[in-house]
């Protein structure tokens, strides 16, 4: 009984990790940049989610608004911060990304206040009782089902749509994709839009789970998402999803069984070190 509960908790957390880390993998796969500032977009998504819900009472509208606005902000981040640095070594862009992340946290503090925000009326606060007093919160059902639907749709499009195929070709060999008329600039914008929109949706969902957003809610997410994409194998989308789910479940069990030894947030790195000792290329990474 406890196992089932812990597994579901883990899948909920893993779904959130997957939504956040996928954007990071997309950017790394295409540009070989570690996009640390991605976590700042996750936070922004959380804020927009709470503010729009409180203003309009509609969670659906809040999710859509967060995805679109943050998607556009992500495109702007690429255009303004990364594109001018593409000819430089990747660590230059990494430094810019870290700076942007720190600056965003301060910006959120100034704009939204230092104490964080909550929903005035928390949407989806109920739960259903399944069996033996086993409860599943509506929010948890929402997190899992949204992740499954969104990731399935994206997966289908990347495999079967012409744009999806062109995008995968661009990841493999940008200049050859260009030689056949793929506009790689548009591929990059699309990449940042989708990745950032996913992070924003994750932000709204985390805000729902915790009923709270604050300026630094992205800091744990930022380093954990980095651990996940390394764990999965840098650039591997399947690896990222697998690592996100595994980490969610391991954290969920670890908190109960190893909680007296090791902090929850340290588990990710302990697990990362263990895996890299056996598979230096990550779970599904190419050698």
């Amino acid at each position, binding site marked *: 009984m406890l196992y089932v509960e812990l597994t579901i908790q883990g899948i909920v957390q893993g779904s959130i990790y997957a939504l956040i880390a996928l954007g990071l993998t997309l950017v790394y796969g295409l540009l070989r940049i570690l996009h640390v500032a991605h976590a700042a977009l996750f936070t922004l998504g959380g804020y927009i989610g709470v503010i729009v819900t409180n203003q309009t009472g509609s969670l659906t509208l809040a999710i859509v608004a967060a995805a679109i606005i943050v998607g556009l902000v992500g495109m702007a981040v690429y255009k303004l911060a990364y594109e001018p640095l593409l000819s430089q070594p990747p660590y230059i862009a990494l430094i810019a990304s870290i700076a942007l992340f720190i600056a965003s946290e301060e910006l959120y503090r100034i704009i939204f206040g230092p104490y964080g925000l909550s929903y005035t009326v928390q949407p989806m606060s109920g739960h259903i009782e399944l069996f033996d007093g086993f409860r599943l919160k509506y929010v948890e059902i929402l997190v899992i089902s949204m992740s499954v639907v969104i990731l399935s749709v994206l997966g289908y499009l990347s495999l079967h749509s*012409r744009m999806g*195929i*062109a995008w995968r*070709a661009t990841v493999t*060999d940008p200049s050859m*994709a260009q030689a*056949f008329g*793929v*506009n790689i600039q548009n591929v990059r914008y699309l990449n940042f839009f989708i990745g950032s929109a996913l992070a924003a949706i994750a932000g709204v969902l985390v805000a729902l789970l915790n009923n709270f957003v604050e300026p630094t809610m992205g800091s744990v997410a930022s380093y954990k998402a980095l651990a996940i994409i390394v764990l999965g194998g840098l650039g591997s989308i399947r690896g990222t999803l697998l690592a996100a789910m595994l980490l969610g479940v391991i954290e969920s069990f670890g908190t109960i069984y190893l909680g007296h030894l090791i902090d929850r947030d340290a588990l990710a790195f302990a697990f990362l070190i263990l895996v890299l000792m056996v598979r230096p290329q990550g779970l599904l990474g190419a050698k």
Partner: protein
Amino acid sequence: MLEVTNLSAGYGDIIAIRDFSFSVKAGEILTFIGANGAGKSTTLMAIMGLVKQNSGSIVLSGDDITNLPVEARIRQGIAIVPEGRRIFPDLTVRENLVVGGHSVSKQILEQGIETVFGYFGRLGERADQLAGSLSGGEQQMLAMGRALISRPKLLLVDELSLGLMPKIVDECYLVLGELNNNGMAIILVEQNTERALDVANSACVLEAGNPGFSGSVAEISNDDSLLNSLLGH
């Protein structure tokens, strides 16, 4: 068909080709002959719009395409079979062809895929296999097929025979000959000079970025000393 005048192009500050002029008509094969680093591939990349052009003009079927981006050049009817094949290894054979037809309508894409499978039956058999798992010869066929989807008027072919079994090379040249007979203009870069002179109508010799002899293959065949120097005898 294609008129190139005083083309200079290169990478960054390095000029790989200087003041190169040549032309090719519909149904003709032009070959570039020269050692590695002579600027043959760079010239093809510049025609495709993939390498920065410093000066000169490129005119295709009367339209000046010198300043057009790659996408527009594809629509004007140019396609490339690049050096080293450069197929997309993580994509299936069919998906590689879909990328080749990125700039054409779905209908032309579907017809193009059927045509390519008609030329190269092996590709049809392996349509859903990852391109990276194909043999070298099949990858070369795929690289050719990928370039044909957009129905080019001018095909740029870079090192068709490099590292391939003679039988496969013959098969590729057979298809090239058929396309040429149907009116396609072809510019061929080929390390096998004998083979290139065998199929081409005219040739340009390049030496370290500078254009040398240029003329018909018949002229070369009649000039024993030139022929011997080109063939390395």
